[in-house]
């Protein structure tokens, strides 16, 4: 009974159910192969393709924990990719490490600046987060297209391609990026007081201010971090396909990321947050996508399946829904059971 109370129980159960389904459907699902020093297999694919979503969702978790939301991550993903590809395509030698590093640096600085913009609007001007980030979400797509001049910029650079499709110690490099960001976020929030500050600001901004927390800087920090995470995700995505598409890169990422956070058990009203839950949530979404493709569901109805899974996950996590079920079950059995118990004793 107690294990069901653990906050990771429902997300892990969902993931396990999905994986189990895959195992029954195709036993090859869990097989890993080593080819040319690299690991191959469906599980590795899920980790690799899921890494941008995991990154964005980690940043989103902290924002949601402060009671906010960041709708602009999809646009930041597009802008970061566009900026990096533009810088590289302008260079004379696209493969040179210095150029790639400066491109990566430039787009990360740009995504930090965009995070700063969101943070200032929320903490400085005092706008509602959903609107403050809606501005950048709408305008950001335009900016990304402005950077790429409406074209798809293609680059041919092995060093840049390494970020999204290279491998380190047999595993895709992007997994290490996710691990690093996850570790950094975990250490910063769980080993320092920052995590408590974030939860306090999310639970009650006024009370936390009175308690002496500089909620303004806490808010600024989470939006900066979210921008950075989205920027890294943008680099991974664009480097994976060696091109930047201002219109379609990172489309609907904000929705998937918010979904991952909610599946992970963090409430949209702010307060307690669960980074591990978020990563599991992102993995659930990616596994679901892979599963849908693998079992040959026609791509047309992918969205329908996704909608039902979202609804089921949210219903399962909704306290009101679980109580309604329990109440119905109880009222149906309770009087008879009491009667039986009376006679037995």
């Amino acid at each position: 009974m107690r294990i069901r109370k653990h906050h990771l129980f429902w997300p892990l159960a969902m993931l396990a159910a999905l994986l189990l389904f895959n195992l029954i459907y195709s036993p090859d699902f869990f097989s890993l192969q080593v080819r040319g020093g690299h690991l191959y297999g469906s599980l590795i694919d899920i980790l690799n393709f899921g890494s941008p979503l995991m990154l964005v969702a980690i940043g989103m978790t902290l924002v949601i924990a402060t009671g906010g939301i960041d709708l602009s991550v999809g646009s930041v993903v597009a802008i970061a990719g566009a900026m990096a590809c533009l810088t590289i395509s302008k260079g004379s030698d696209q493969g040179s490490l210095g150029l790639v590093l400066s491109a990566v640096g430039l787009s990360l600085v740009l995504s930090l600046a965009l995070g700063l913009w969101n943070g200032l609007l929320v903490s400085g001007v005092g706008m509602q987060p959903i609107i403050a980030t809606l501005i950048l979400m709408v305008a950001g797509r335009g900016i990304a297209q402005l950077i790429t001049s409406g074209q798809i910029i293609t680059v041919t650079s092995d060093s840049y391609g390494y970020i999204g499709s290279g491998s380190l110690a047999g595993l895709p490099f992007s997994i290490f990026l996710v691990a690093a960001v996850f570790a950094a976020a975990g250490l910063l929030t769980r080993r320092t007081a920052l995590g408590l500050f974030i939860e306090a600001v999310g639970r009650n901004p006024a009370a936390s201010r009175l308690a002496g927390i500089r909620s303004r800087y806490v808010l600024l920090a989470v939006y900066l971090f979210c921008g950075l995470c989205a920027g890294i995700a943008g680099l991974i995505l664009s480097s994976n396909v060696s091109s930047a598409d201002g219109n379609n890169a990172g489309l609907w990422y904000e929705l998937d990321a918010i979904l991952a956070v909610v599946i992970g058990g963090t409430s949209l009203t702010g307060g307690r947050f669960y980074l591990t839950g978020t990563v599991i949530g992102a993995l659930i979404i990616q596994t679901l996508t892979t599963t849908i493709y693998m079992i040959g569901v026609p791509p047309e109805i992918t969205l329908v399946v996704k909608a039902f899974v979202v609804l089921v996950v949210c219903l399962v996590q909704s306290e009101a829904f679980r109580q309604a079920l329990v109440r119905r079950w109880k009222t149906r059995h309770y009087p008879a059971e009491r009667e039986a118990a009376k006679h037995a004793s």
Partner: protein
Amino acid sequence: MLLNRKYLPIAVTVFLFALMFLAGAFRYTGFFSLQVFFNLLIDNAFLLIVAVGMTFVIVSGGIDLSVGSMIALTTMISASLVQEQGWPPAVVIPLVLVLGTLFGWGMGAVIHYFKIQPFIVTLAGMFLARGLCYVISINTITIDHPFYQKMAQTKVSLPGGSFVSISVLIALVVVAAGVYVAHYTRLGRNVYALGGSEQSALLMGLPVARTKIAVYAISGFCSALAGVVFTFYMLSGYGLHAMGLELDTIASVVIGGTLLTGGVGYVAGTFFGVLIQGVIQTIISFEGTLSSWWTKIVIGLLLFLFILFQRLLLVRPAARKL
């Protein structure tokens, strides 16, 4: 003060619309005509209808992300039934309106009874409606039914040589009905009360459950009606229709002076919010050399200015009280 403070955001929206229209008139020949103004309505009739429904949802303190997908689904169902099954439009149009209302009603019920955030529920609704389009067909279904053709091409002549389409008349009726419901009916007052504070509304004994569900049902009905109008406009059903329209709608509502926190806003403001979006697009098309992405940047900028302005309006009375 000459003007009631609560009408100030609307006044600014109207003023800005007039300013942009005049700026366009000075810059481009042929801009300042009644027909250009009516074209704004013709091209944005569906947006107007959705935005009226969205205003109710946002005033009640919620949000509806499913409207764009609902429009696509409506075009798809209409096209498929009329074109492939041969059903008469007189049956199909009421049917899709009922379906849209039921869809919104269902989302409202889930939001209220299971206490899941509107954002998530309507997001699931958005995936579901968009997905159902592809279940029907992944291709465009062109409609050549005489009734739809007629609705698309009929021009209602107005004095002065200008004309509007039938869709515009439908949209104007919806706006009028929206204003009436919001300000002159019990339901409208309940929606404002609910948006102001759900707890207070509950304590006052207002029917919170019914109102909340009704708001989403209204939005569902409006998006289905917008879908019907969109079908007249595009004469086809397609799963990719009205992509991202939910954001345009929310932007229009916010530019129209409605607060996303709920409780404050006017349907009339939304009307001008939609017109402002239309003017931006018209100016960009008149300019010719500007690319389409400037629309997004300008709308983002306008959103920013408006919200900043609303903040200032809200902050100042609060500061005076201290």
